[in-house]
């Protein structure tokens, strides 16, 4: 009886008793969710266009952020470093297409998945070799990103918002809007959607798959760079980030592997869900449930909706 009370009633009583704390947890969850969503977005872009489940998206985030900070450390002005990092991401996309995707064309999904593992190892080794394995501080002020916090009084206390989080929210919204316009309105965007629908049909109307792949990997690289800057500004740029990037997987499952809105909504649900669960239900189980809670939500979801929230309905034929 006491246990039931602890599970079903006590957390809500706590929420009601301290609405400021609840709002703060909600906000923290939202911000974490935005970052999960950003990583998931990179996954979705690549998965839609090439059917490759890109495990390396997490390390691409780290690699992009490291390149930016590393270049700046060597005396390159911040914005030039930013531009150079974008160039590096393009070279990476081009190299991946040439050396990895093209020879592996028409292979089973799991083989391509494994190849992105190989890419992960290469990027870890290369990144550490060039920039060193120590955590670095993101060049927040040089990029004119705000720091500090805003305190908002009310709800019987105060809620604090980090300015960088607000900036992250705005930048993410802009990026998603740009991507949406790009996908819906431009020629290349249409080609991308055609490729996502059917590789063969796209080829037969004269769309170059190779070109499309370079473009999506580059787009995913730019998304990774943005994610890296935002995440790096919140904590620091280190290789431990790529473990957190695994959290993007349940986000994808929740939202559906092929849906951009799904990635966003899934990210927010997971981010908010796990922060609230950790804060209110975590102590019951001894804490640390953040590490698996997201996966269990996703698992529960999958049993009822195997294609995710926004995924295309899976139709199987013999």
């Amino acid at each position, binding site marked *: 009886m006491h246990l039931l009370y602890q599970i079903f009633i006590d957390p809500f009583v706590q929420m009601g008793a301290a609405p400021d704390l609840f709002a703060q947890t909600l906000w923290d969850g939202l911000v974490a969710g935005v970052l999960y969503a950003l990583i998931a977005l990179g996954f979705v872009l690549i998965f839609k266009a090439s059917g490759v489940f890109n495990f390396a998206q997490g390390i691409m985030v780290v690699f992009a952020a490291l390149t930016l900070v590393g270049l700046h450390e060597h005396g390159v002005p911040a914005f030039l470093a930013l531009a150079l990092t974008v160039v590096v991401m393009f070279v990476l996309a081009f190299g991946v297409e040439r050396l990895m995707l093209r020879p592996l064309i028409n292979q089973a999904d799991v083989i391509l998945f494994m190849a992105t593992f190989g890419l992960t190892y290469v990027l*870890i080794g290369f990144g550490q070799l060039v920039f060193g394995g120590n955590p670095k501080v993101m060049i927040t002020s040089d990029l004119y990103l705000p720091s500090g916090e805003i305190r908002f009084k009310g709800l019987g206390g105060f809620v604090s918002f980090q300015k960088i989080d607000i900036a992250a929210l705005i930048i993410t919204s802009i990026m998603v809007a740009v991507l949406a316009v790009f996908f819906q309105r431009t020629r290349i965007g249409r080609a991308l959607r055609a490729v996502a629908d059917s590789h063969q049909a796209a080829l037969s109307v004269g769309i170059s798959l190779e070109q499309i792949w370079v473009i999506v990997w580059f787009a995913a690289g730019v998304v990774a760079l943005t994610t890296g800057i935002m995440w790096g500004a919140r904590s620091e740029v280190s290789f431990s980030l790529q473990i957190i990037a695994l959290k993007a997987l349940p986000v994808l499952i929740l939202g559906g592997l092929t849906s951009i809105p799904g990635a966003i909504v899934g990210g927010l649900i997971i981010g908010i869900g796990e922060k609230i669960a950790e804060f209110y239900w975590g102590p019951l189980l001894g804490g640390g449930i953040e*590490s698996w809670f997201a996966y269990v939500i996703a698992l529960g979801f999958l049993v009822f909706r195997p294609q995710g929230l926004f995924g295309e309905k899976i139709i199987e034929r*013999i």
Partner: protein
Amino acid sequence: MLYREVGQYKTNYAADMAVFPILQDRIGIGIILFVAFVVFPLIGNDFLLNAVLIPFLIFSLAAIGLNLLTGYCGLLSLGTGAFMGVGAYACLKLTTYFPQVNIVVWILASGFFSAAVGVLFGLPSLRIKGFYLAVATLAAQFFLEWCFIRIPWLYNNSVSGAIEVPLRTFMSVPITGPTATSLTRYLTVLSIVVLMTWLASNLVHGRIGRMWMSVRDMDLAAELIGIRLLRAKLLAFAVSSFYCGVAGAMLVFLWYGGAEAEVFNIDQSFLELFMVIIGGLGTLIGSFFGAALIYILPIALRLIPEGLGLPLHPATVEQLRFLVVGILIIVFLVLEPNGLARLWQIGKQKLRVWPFPY
């Protein structure tokens, strides 16, 4: 020249369906077993047995377990590390409560606990497949890892939070624990691995293996010809987790001699998956090839700079190792996506028709 099947006639169905239809293959396997059971124990030093052969065999067994699931039944799993962990912790609890029973019995029995957990987390596999299932098994990975850390009962409330392997003897010869020699541990591991590989071979060549393969190739069609999907898939999860569990128990009891939950983290799962894919999906021999390559390659890479006398910083060596392993994985996949087992097959075919090209 030596590898010919000329004159070897098959006069009954049993001979036609044999696992090793060619005489030379049978001789070869005999030689391998002889070397493993007799030559290595005689000539092997501590380094060879303890740092190369024991882990190689244990990882091979885990790779076979994953291969049964992923290669034969087509269900992608990223929870291998956690299932191995279940085996290790189950073995610890069993031998704590019943110390008089032979430890080898408990190592094998701990597989059943792992199998039960595997079935539980395999339940969603009926509705989801492919990468969706892979993420579902990640839930198992992270949840079980959390359990290993947060439930002190599992590691006997030891202060360090690690498994401490107790001394267990069989006919007064120590098998596990600090005083067990690498030779007895090697022979124990070898016997278990050979036995379980033989079982797995029989399993995949029989009705159950065919059932799994039909599910892998197209589960809808398999269902139409009367295979019960839920049973086939759950059986695959159970058997696979059984193998992983035994491998995990051996990893801690017969190799590390003590381990923390960290041993069974996500990297372990990925390592196992590498072995299976590089070795060859859906082949038992590939599991051994993959384990050899993935386990022994890093050791070799660590030794090469030393051997050449290059004055490299250990951290640099580690980074280079990542880089080289990553590149090799991609190169291997590009050159032979079907894995080392396929190369082996091609090689044998070339030998059979030599000196003609085909």
